[in-house]
Each structure stands twice: as C-alpha cells, then as structure tokens.
C-alpha cells in the first residue's frame, strides 16, 4: 500500500470527524489494521418511507483510489429499485463512470443517501458493463 493512499484516507477520516454530514451516522475503517475496508451507517431521510431506518454500508477501497471509485455495498437488506436486494450492490453513476477524485467516501455516501429518497428508475440495476470493465483494467 502506498503512503499517499493511506494519507488521503486518513485525511478523509479527519474531515468526516471534524464536519460530519447530518444523516451519515458513522464512517470509519472497520478494523484498525486495514484502512482499505470501511463501514458507514446511513440514516433514512425524514418524511420519506426510510425515516427512522439505519443501513450499514461496506466500503472496499481499491489500491488505486481515488483514481478508481470505492466499491460500496449495502450490508443491510433494502428494497430499492437501484439496489440489488440480495447482493446489496448499488447502481449509481458516481460509483461507476461519473467518478472523479473530487469525490470522497463521505460525499459518495451522501450521494447514496440521496439515491434512497430519489430513485432513478431509468438506471436499472445492471449498470453499464463498460464502466465496470474500465475500472477493472485500471486496477491492474
């Protein structure tokens, strides 16, 4: 693992702790000895069917982050047109081909929370395979 990746992730963690987004209950590495696996806890937005709910996300960070997006999945079962019920996979452009290093783990989680209250019926679950391939080659 490169120092620069660790450095960026630690800064993201500090940034979150300093100024956490209101509906992001937690965002932190899962274990002390692996900074590439994080967890996040989302709270459902008020006045939506998701109000009062809590969802756990698992974030796997690729070694070439932030060149490639993090891999984020729902660990809590959720019924949503853009989230795979069984695998927890999320279909969101930001996590695929609209990703840029300007995004952070925190802003990606916020985008996911917004997706909860604003589903994208036009983008079905099986997201474009092109983007997946592109990141796969980048990972090498």
């Amino acid at each position, binding site marked *: 693992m490169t120092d*620069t*990746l660790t*450095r960026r992730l630690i800064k*993201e963690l500090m940034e979150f702790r300093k100024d956490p987004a209101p509906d992001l209950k937690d965002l932190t590495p899962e274990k002390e000895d692996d900074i590439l696996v994080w967890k996040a806890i989302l709270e459902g937005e008020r006045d939506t069917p998701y109000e009062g709910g809590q969802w756990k996300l698992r974030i796997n960070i690729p070694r070439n982050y932030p*060149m490639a997006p993090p891999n984020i999945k729902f660990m809590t079962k959720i019924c949503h047109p853009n989230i795979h019920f069984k695998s927890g996979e999320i279909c969101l452009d930001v996590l695929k081909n609209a990703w840029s*290093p*300007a995004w952070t783990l925190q802003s990606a989680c916020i985008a996911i929370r917004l997706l909860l209250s604003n589903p994208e019926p036009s983008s079905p679950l099986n997201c474009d395979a092109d983007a997946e391939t*592109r990141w796969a080659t980048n990972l090498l």
Partner: protein
Amino acid sequence: MNSQTFPLLIPEDTEGSSYLGFITIKGQEIPFGIHIDQRNARNLKNAHLRGSPELCRLVAGQEHRLEQCSTLEEFLIDLKDLLEQLVTKEENELMRSGTYYSTLLEELDAIGWDKLQSIDHALKNISLRIKYIGQHALLFACREAITYNHTVFNVLISHSDSSGRQHTIKVILPSSYPSDPPIVHVDLPTSISISLHSKSGLRKIISLFQEEVKQFQDLWLLLEDFDNHTWVLEPDKPKRSDLMRRIALGNHCSLQIDVDVKNPRGICECRLFGSEKTVGPLQDRLNKNLMRWDQSLTIRQNLEAILEMNFPSPLTTSKSEFNVECGICYSYRLNDEIPSQTCNNEKCGQPFHRACLYEWLRAIPTTRQSFNMLFGNCPYCDDNITTMVVEK
C-alpha cells in the same frame, strides 16, 4: 549444585527454583538471578535470567545458546564462558583503538580544548563540551558507537559565524584514524575540498571551514531575507547549501528563484508557476522591469519592485493559505513535488501534482493526447485542463 564452582550462588526459596548470586567474570562480580520452571525441570527452556543492565546487554541475542543447557550447573558454566568471551572481545576492541584515543585527545588539546565534560569508565561514551578560547565558541560532542567489528567516532563541531549563524561540521573518525582520513560532512553551497586536507587533522578542518563560511555571508543574508519575509514553499526546511527558493505569491501562484553562488546580488533566475491568467500579467512585468535590477538592493526587494507587489509575508498571512494540497492525493509534498498544476478556471483554481493529474487524465477515455501533452477535464470543475505526460 556444585558449590565449589559457584560459591556465590544462594537459593532464594526451598524448592530450589530460584537462585540469587554473583558470577565472576575476569575478577569482576556481576550480580544475577535465575528462576527455573520446576514443572519442566528436564531442561532450562523456560529458565528466566535476571540481571544488571550490563549483564543483559552482554547476553542479548545469545539466549538460544543458554536455553540448550539441560542442568543448572551446565547453564552457569556456559554463561560464565559466554560472558568471558564477550568481555574479552570488547576489551580487545578497546585496546586496538588505543592510539586512536590518544591521537584524538592530543588533537583536541591542540585546538584549544580546556575542559573534558564527561567520559565514562569503559570509554564507551565520551562527551566533550569544551570552550574554545578565541573568537568563536565551539561545542564539541563526541559519541562513540561500538559495534562488534569497528569503532566509529562522530565529532559534531558547532561553529558560529560573524553573523551568529550556527554551522555544524560533522566529522566521522574511522577506527583506523589517524592512518585513514576522517570523513567530513558540511552544509555549504559549494562542495569544498575539506576532505582532501583532512589528513592535517581537526584543527585544519575547522580553519578551512571558517574560510569558506566567510565568503558566503552575503549570499546567506540574501536568502534569509526570503526566509524571513516571504512564505517559502520549497525547500521544506532550507539548508545552508540550498540556493533555490520557491515562494508563495497568492492566487495559487508561486515564484521560484535560483541564486547564482558566484554573483548572488546579480539578476537571478526566476520562474513563475500558476494558472495562465494570474501568471501572464506577472510574466509581463518581469520582462518589462527586469532591467531595473539594482545590485544594492536585496533579491527580494528587487523582485517586489519588478513585479509591482509586496510578497505575502509571515507577519500578515498564514502559510496554510498558500500550501494548498493536491486535489487528488490530498498531500502537499509528493516525492518532493508540490502541486504545481493549477486548474485555469478562476472559480476552481484547484492545484494538482503533475503525476497525480497525469495518472487521472490518462485513465479517462475522453482525454486526448498530442505529443507529450494531455488534454482533458479538471476532476473538480470539468473545465479543460492540460498537463504534460509524466515519464515513469
């Protein structure tokens, strides 16, 4: 237990699992204690040895040898053997370097030492704080690092020049000194031939150094003028040998100067960094006014006049306003590079390391390449951004 071999050992308890005593090595009694795990009395694998720091230092790394003994007596004989060997070895090393010490001490006398601050009985740590009788105060600290095969002496000489700057000369004396010359490290803008003359000893090294230091007084004054009155972005911690400074101008702009060591007051090399919009007007002023360079002013004063601005100063601004991190890796310094690629969109102005931006742009299908330039979009504002291909 054979009390003939070890008359100085007494049991600490009735079970015979703990003993306390002394072990005699070369006429010196070293205190120690041993605890044996009775459940496992057949060998001493779990035996635990307690002792003075000196004893622990000697047996460090040798425990495996002692673990192989099957009886306490065997263990103690082995321990005695081992300690005697180790002590003899250290003594020999000290003997060999006898001439070395006397030469060093003679030399210290010659330079004008008048006081030896401390020296421990085993000659393992010597620290000398000696006042130099004369114009300069010198502080010497000598430390010896003993390893198994050779002895190295580091002498740090701190010298204060006519402007009160502290300089350090680091002299490494090999164990074969004085037949082999010392290695001299100094922090000066030019590499001087001190090492060549170093056969002549510490005294000569110091006087050569003083000569060198004299000729750089004006150069250092000019560079310190930057260090004290501007925000120096690079180098991180300027050394006396650094002739380059990169200073913050604000608006994600910076100016790099390289001072000519032979003519420090002359026109120096200048390079501007930043987005085209902000650098353009500054470059014009630089071209237009450069002829007004005045050798009686400092470099900073000249450049402020030429660029028609006052450089941001530590008195009025904080450094965090200028050393803005790279938008990709979130660090400022990456392999000694600072974020020098700035987005030209004035509202964005996000800086990036060249390497980071290149790494990002080359992975994007819409990025175009022409010769060694990449044309793509800023990861932050999506405006056009250009960067050079980075060779790996």
